[in-house]
């Protein structure tokens, strides 16, 4: 069970949150300049890194805010929480 420190509500149980997928890296400025493979990679293939990964979580049963969380996939330690993207 994760304990997520919502910037508004304080420490809350994972039960109150909905996972929103990995936080994508910034959108390429000009997708037309990318190869098809690179574009599909950015659009549909999330990184599956071992270690700290940025993720989107919504405090859906709490204040309703979308958060970006940096979670270490080895330990579940939450290293950073911030509002928005």
């Amino acid at each position, binding site marked *: 069970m994760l304990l997520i420190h919502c910037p508004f509500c304080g420490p809350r*149980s994972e039960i109150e949150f909905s996972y929103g997928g990995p936080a994508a890296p910034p959108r390429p400025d000009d997708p037309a300049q990318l190869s098809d493979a690179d574009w599909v990679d950015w659009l549909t293939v999330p990184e599956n890194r071992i270690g700290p990964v940025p993720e989107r979580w919504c405090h859906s*049963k709490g204040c309703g805010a979308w958060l970006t969380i940096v979670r270490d996939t080895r330990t579940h330690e939450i290293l950073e929480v911030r509002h928005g993207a």
Partner: protein
Amino acid sequence: MAYQIRISPPQRHTLFDLRGTPQALAARLQGIVPNLPTQPCSLVRHGQGTLMWLGPLRWCLMAPPEAEAALEAALMQGPADHDAAITLISDTQAFFRISGRDAAVAMSIACPLDLHPTAFGVDHVALTDAFGVRALVLREGDDWILGLEPSYAAYVEAQLRQIV
């Protein structure tokens, strides 16, 4: 060992959902509530109204049922305002009052909040989960107020009565 817990029948309160900027909402609430709460998950009381701060841009005004018409007239006057959206939502929530010596035991089984007085004192309020349902929890003196969507009221009441 039996717990000493009392559970009221589900009750309806006057309830307004308020979304927008603090400045715009404060202007709309002039004469009804003098100040917005200053701490997240806290409330201010004024007259018959209780104004709760539930999210970064989200507040809720609760009052007795008989205050609904007057509050609606006062809050809904003037043109719609993007920076201060106010919606009457009384019919969307049913409220239980949970009281008695062991009320906190029932609440700690119902929801995942840390309800120790140092973490959740009197007049603390939060949106959370109760038996899998989105719920509003408010500590009022030694009592607890539990609000949730009315269609879940019978289910949640049955879960609470299992504890008693």
